Each structure stands twice: as C-alpha cells, then as structure tokens.
C-alpha cells in the first residue's frame, strides 16, 4: 500500500513546523530551559515526527520529505537524548581554582609518566654532553646555546645596554605563542598512540639536560639557575602538563584493559584535555611574560639570589596550587 503523500503532509505539517520552531529556539538560545509541560510537549512532537519518519520510510520512498524528517528527527534526538552538562556561563575563577587542579590530580599518574620521560631525556642529554662535548651542536641546535657558557656569562654581566629594549613586549608575545603552540602539538601527538608525545618530551629533556650539564661543567650553575628558574619554574611544568594531556589521549586511544568502545573512551577524556590545555595556556602566558621581563636580566641589574628566590616562590605556589587547590570542593560531575 502506498501512503497518500499529500494528505499525509497536509495533516502532519503543523507538528513538523512546531518542532522545527522549538528546535530553532533551542539552538539560538543554548542556555534557555524548558518547563516540565514544555518538555513533555517537545517530547510528544519528537515522537510523532519520528513515527512519521518511520511511516514514510516504510510506505513511501519519497526522498525529499524523508530527508526533511530525518533532519528534524536528528536535531531533536540530539536535544532529547543528550545527558551531558549543557554548557552555560561558568565562573572563570571556579574553573581556574577548582576544575583545573582537580582535573590535574585526577590524572596525576599521566603527569608522573610525562615527568619520568623528561627526566630520562635530561639524563640522556647531560650524560651525552659529558661523554662527548663535541656533540653540543647536535644536542642543542640553537645558535645562542652554542656559545661557551663562561664567555656568555661574562658578556651578559658586563652588558651596558639593554639588548631587549624596545621589543620586550613583542618578544614576550612571541614566547607565549610559540610555547603554547609547542604544548598543543605535544597534546595533539597523543593521537600517534603517544609516540609523538613521548618524542617531544624526551627531546625537550635532552636539550634541558645538555644545557644544564654544559653550564655546570663550566662552573656557571648560579647563572644557569638564576636564568632558567624564574620562567622555567612555570614553563617546564606547563610543558609536562601538556605531555600529561597527550598521554591521556594516547591511553584513551589504546584503551588497554578497558571494555568501553573507542568513542566512549575519547568522549570521557575530551573535557579534561580541554581543561588541562587551557591551564597550560595560562601558565605559559605568565612564563612568557617573566622570561621577557625578568629572566634575561642578570647581575648586576638583578641579583641572582633574588631571581632564584622568585623562581622558588613560583615553584612552591604552583605545587601548592596543583596539589591543594579545590581539594575540599566536590569535583564536577
């Protein structure tokens, strides 16, 4: 039997039009809420339109009406069956002081792995440089790091002119955006089953270890700590958190021992990844500011103990923030 198409459309069109109107309103105002009566009516319209779709699919292969109804049912289905929290206006301070540290602590094992990989890289870089100092251009392929540390310290400490004068702000912006890009890349490489994230963390560790070993061998430890600690106390943990997020993504992708489908695993970590990378962005913005305005100035302009103390205070505050902030509040659902 063929459905009487035109009669069917005439009879059912008011239902479809009303459902479409409600959907348009819901989509235009995501924060709006419906009363129980409105919800019941919305559900009734959805069920009736779904039944119409079933009828037209069964009795008539008229593709245009079917496609129109499929579109309506698909949109309404997303609104009715969605159980995740509807995004609303969130307080930025609550997110920063509660959601971010709680998320970090929930996945702290991935952070430890990220730290271990970086430390392994550091050990490798330091050991390689100590074993073969001629490998310096390979381990630290940046011109400003190839100079002899003692000579560099002498030049920095005897400088009479501010070499960053007139472009400190743009240098700071460059550092922020560059480091955030590297962090996002480290996270995104989690999609290579974590291989890319591992390589990024390990290569960062190699450079850090080689630079450290180079300055320690030259007897310039105080300069090194005074130079790196003010911004590194925030920048290095931020990169490690980006690595943590990359490893979380890889773990969800691999799904070892998990009995849930891939889509559900990735869906489960998606919100936490965004939270962590948001936090990384903020930390790196601060680190970029400190690196341009403080780290590049040495004795006699700024005493090393002051720079080191500043870096240690930052490190302590960051540790306290990540370990304790929001610990007494209930985590979000």
């Amino acid at each position, binding site marked *: 039997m063929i459905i009487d198409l035109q*009669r069917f459309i005439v009879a059912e069109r008011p239902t479809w039009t009303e459902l479409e109107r409600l959907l348009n309103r819901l989509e235009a105002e995501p924060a709006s809420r419906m009363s129980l009566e409105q919800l019941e009516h919305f559900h009734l319209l959805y069920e009736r339109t779904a039944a119409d779709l079933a009828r037209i699919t069964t009795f008539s*292969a008229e593709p245009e009406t079917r496609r129109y109804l499929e579109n309506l049912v*698909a949109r309404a289905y997303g609104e009715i069956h*969605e159980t995740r929290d509807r995004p609303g206006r969130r307080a930025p301070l609550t997110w920063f002081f509660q959601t971010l540290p709680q998320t970090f602590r929930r996945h702290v094992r991935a952070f430890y792995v990220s730290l271990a990989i970086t430390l392994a890289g550091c050990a490798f870089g330091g050991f390689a440089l100590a074993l073969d100092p001629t490998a310096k251009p390979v381990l630290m392929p940046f011109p400003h790091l190839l100079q002899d540390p003692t000579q560099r310290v002498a030049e920095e400490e005897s400088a009479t002119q501010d070499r960053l004068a*007139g472009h400190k702000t743009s240098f*700071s912006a460059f550092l922020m955006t560059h480091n955030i890009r590297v962090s996002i890349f480290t996270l*995104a490489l989690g*999609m290579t089953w974590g291989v890319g994230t591992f390589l990024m963390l390990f290569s960062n560790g190699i450079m850090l270890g080689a630079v450290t070993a180079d300055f320690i061998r030259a007897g310039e430890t105080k300069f090194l700590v005074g130079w790196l600690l003010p911004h590194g106390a925030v920048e290095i943990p931020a990169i490690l958190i980006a690595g943590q997020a990359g490893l979380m993504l890889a773990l969800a992708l691999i799904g070892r021992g998990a009995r849930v489908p891939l889509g559900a695993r*990735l869906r489960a970590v*998606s919100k936490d990844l965004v939270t962590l990378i948001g936090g990384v962005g903020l930390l790196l913005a601060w680190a970029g500011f400190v690196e341009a305005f403080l780290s590049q100035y040495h004795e006699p302009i700024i005493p090393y103990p002051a720079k080191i103390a500043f870096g240690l205070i930052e490190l302590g505050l960051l540790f306290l923030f990540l370990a304790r902030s929001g610990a007494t509040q209930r985590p979000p659902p």
Partner: protein
Amino acid sequence: MNSSLLKIRTPEGIVFSQLLAGPVTRFLAWFIDVMCILALLETLGRLLILLQFVSSNLAGAVYTLGYFAISIGYGMACEWRWRGQTIGKKLFRLRVVDAEGLRLQFNQIVTRNLLRFVDALPAFYFVGGVACWLSPQCQRLGDLAANTIVIRNPRVAQPDLDQLSAGMFNSLRHYPHLAGRLRQRVSPLEAAIALQALLRRDEFAPIARLELFRDLAAHFRAKVAFPPEATDGITDEQFLRNVADVIYRTRANNRIENLAA
C-alpha cells in the same frame, strides 16, 4: 572512505541517516576558511598600522597574539557560534555534529580544532586527508579524538506534488476499481521512481526523457490493463502522471484540499 551515510538508530527504534562529507568537499571548505583567516589577518595588520605610530613594540605584540588567536580560534569560534559551521562549511553546506547524533559540545569543538596541528602534517592536511579517506565515517584524527563527524546537508525542498496534474483531467479515475488495483499492485519503490521521474523531468535530455517515460509507462501498463479509451491518445509522460496521481492522491485527499480552500 567506506560509506557516505551514517545510520543512527534511536532507542525508539527509528533509524535516520546523516550524509557524510567527503575529503574533497572538506578540503574546499577548508580552503575558503584559510582565505577568511588571511583576510582577518590582513585587516588586523592594517588596523595595527595606526598603533605603530604609538608603539611599534606594542603593535608587534598585538599582531603576534592576534595572529595566534585568529589562526587557532577561528574554527573554534565559528563552530561554536554557528553550531558546527564555519564560513567555508556554510558555503558547502557542511556541519560538524556529534558522531552519535547528540548535541555538539564545546569540548568537542576545541579538541577537534587543536588536533589540526597533527592533521595538517606534513602540509595541506595530508595526515588528516589520509585518515579521512581510510576512516569508515570519514573522520580526520581531530574528529576521531573529539568523536565528531562532518555531515553534508543538501538543500531540502518540500516536494511539489502540484506538478502531478492537480486539477487536470485524469482518464484513469473513470475506472476506480482498476485504479484501486493499481494502488495495490505498485510497490513503494516503483511509486517513488514514477514520482521522481515526474518531479525531475526537466532535468533530462529530450531523447533520454522520451525513452525513460516510454519504459516506465510500459512497466506500469503491464501492472493493470486499463481499457483503450483510458490510455489511447495520451503520451507516455501523461500516462505516468495519471498513474502517480492515482497512487499519491486519493479522492479523500482532494476533498480535504477543497475543504481547506
């Protein structure tokens, strides 16, 4: 790419399908978006010329931050504001949706856009394109991580059934028992073929149109034998229009229309 359709079954047992966008269409939409990003950057650069008079250092910093925000945030902002669409996607009628048909979340939008860093490797979205081509749901790595798909929403027009000779004389209606038998014997698929042939008749080349309607008319004539006075003197296309009119319009329906008028 294995299939261009994604079928979703609701708990109520209703199945609906989403038309998946292919890699080429998505690439073209991305190209438009790149043009939009370049236009925004150009605008920003021109605006900052004024700021350079005040401080070139500050202008440089604002441009660096602006470049970063626009290049990374364009996709996120557009897809969040326009529920899964950017300007390029709007032009090609594409939309990002949740892979399970649920509401698209902000986290999903951010995740799929951040993963562009890997999808874009080594150049021109090669990794993303290959992933899209191999994926059963045409997903690049960002879509896979965010559990999203990109669908195509072709323009859907309401069927214009008035083309089926509304108000015109239909010789087959003089034989209601045969018309009823025709309705009984024609399958939904056959009816749909007749309807689509009529609705799209102007899209065919003249010779193809004649041949198509000749074959279809012969097919439907074989279903029920109407007397010669009902079929003689009318073209194959007119015969098929009468058949579709019998199938898709009933007298009850005509009464409804008359009442509504």
